[in-house]
């Protein structure tokens, strides 16, 4: 455990998380104070102070969210580096599986980013109006996010303090393998069906966004994220690694593959986030996201393009598919 905690990246990461959590805790206390006494109709000094304090919450959240957006890839980079210290691990996949905290931690981080982004959309809307109509909603949302953040921070500590450097972990080639009859694909799909489904759901998603069918877009995007994850790991990834048996979501984040993993996962994550955000804001807050439509459509297409490009280039160079 000591070697892990003395790794440079882990120290930097945990320091950043601690500072962020400290600031967010302060924000949490301030938010509770605001929620208790907020009354927009009041003309007194107390109300004025509360309005000022809401700016503190906003500033802290702005700073910490920006940081968290950088810390997520940094976290992935950290665990990738840790693979040098842990026997059996060739990339981050093995390190994440080193204990039971890894995967929930990673998923929780993504959920927090989604919800924090939503917070900012609501905040922007709230500030556009003249009577802070959504202040209580956004502060309660922050309280909920803070609850998740507390779990995240505890998981961070638990995860890094429970990585054994003596016990070998399974490498991605075993974790994600399809050899020996093991099928990592969901719902009993074959690879061909998965790829077809990938492109079909992509088209459906593009259409639903273009036609501004909100609920359909949100549900389709969740489905697309699910399918896309498996498609990238079991199909497109093999073209990145140029090896039909190399199925791994983490290896493509390494310098050997020009860090393309960050691009692929980043595009997918960001486009799904925007759809989620657009869905919630349109449905509950009746906002119109015309201008975001173009961005969402281009990001989705960019993601599909990058994935497909590897396949096409491979075929062009070698005349066959894997």
């Amino acid at each position, binding site marked *: 455990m000591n070697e892990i905690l003395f790794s440079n990246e882990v120290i930097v990461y945990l320091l950043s998380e601690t500072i962020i959590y400290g600031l967010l805790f302060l924000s949490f206390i301030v938010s509770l104070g605001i929620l208790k006494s907020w009354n927009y109709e009041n003309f007194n*000094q107390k109300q004025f102070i509360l*309005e000022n304090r809401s700016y503190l919450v906003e500033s802290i959240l702005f700073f910490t969210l920006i940081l968290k957006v950088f810390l997520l890839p940094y976290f992935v980079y950290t665990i990738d580096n840790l693979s040098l210290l842990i026997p059996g691990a060739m990339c981050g996949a093995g390190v994440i599986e080193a204990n039971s905290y890894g995967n929930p931690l990673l998923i929780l981080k993504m959920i927090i980013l989604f919800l924090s982004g939503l917070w900012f959309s609501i905040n922007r809307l709230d*500030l556009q109006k003249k009577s802070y109509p959504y202040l209580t909603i956004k502060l309660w949302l922050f309280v909920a996010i803070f609850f998740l953040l507390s779990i995240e921070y505890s998981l961070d500590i638990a995860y890094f303090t429970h990585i054994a450097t003596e016990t070998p972990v399974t490498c991605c080639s075993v974790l994600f393998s399809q050899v020996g009859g093991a099928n990592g694909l969901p719902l009993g799909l074959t690879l061909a069906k998965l790829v077809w489904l990938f492109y079909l759901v992509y088209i459906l998603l593009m259409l639903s966004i273009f036609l501004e069918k909100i609920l359909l877009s949100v549900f389709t995007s969740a489905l697309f994220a699910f399918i896309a994850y498996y498609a990238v790991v079991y199909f497109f990834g093999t073209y990145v690694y140029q090896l039909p048996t190399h199925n791994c979501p983490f290896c493509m984040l390494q310098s050997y593959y020009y860090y393309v993993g960050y691009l692929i996962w980043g595009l997918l994550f960001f486009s799904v986030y925007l759809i989620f955000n657009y869905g919630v804001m349109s449905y509950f807050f009746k906002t119109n996201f015309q201008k975001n439509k173009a961005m969402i459509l281009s990001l989705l297409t960019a993601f599909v393009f990058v994935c497909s490009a590897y396949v096409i280039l491979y075929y062009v160079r070698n005349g066959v598919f894997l």
Partner: protein
Amino acid sequence: MNVITIENMHKIYHENSTEEFEVLKNINLVVKKNEMVIVSGVSGSGKSTLLSLVAALEKPSSGKIIVLEELVSKLPDIHASKYRAKHIGIIFQNFNLLESLSVETNVMAPLIHSGLTFSQIEEKVQYSMKLASIEHKATQEIRLLSGGEKQRCAIARALVHNPELILCDEPTANLDKENTLKFISLLETLQELGKTIVIATHDPLFDTLTCVSRVIKMENGRIL
């Protein structure tokens, strides 16, 4: 058209404490477009506070303030700032310029967040400095200017965004006779340009000007 409408407005400092002090009591006031209104009274009569409330720099304890059809008495900061940046030009008693920066940069300051391009802003800055006759000192730092020059810079800054309403708080308190007369002449020009002007001052010189629409006397926080 009413530019300013104030109804039953009270302002109390340090409410619910031993230092509680009602600085403005039951103010009712209407200012029409293109008027030049003088708010006169001794120090402590509440003139400056009245102006800062109209500018949404402070919020009243009760009552309504409507300026250019906007209810400014309860605006959140973002909207209050936008409102000031768009509609109000303020000239302070102590000029309140950014001493370490140049005249140009000071005059530019209200337009930084207006959404205009740099060249558009420069154009407006040049025009405003010309109007206030300070363009020859554009690159000079404020702390090297004389009192009259600082005043003109403050005027240029107050006019750069072409506000409909101009508020002046004791504008001639730190000026000599010559600069005071220059200032008055500028005010007359502004009135001709269609601006509405409210001046808080205890300088008796203003009471007798022909361009002045009316004089409002204040005492102990009340309008007499």
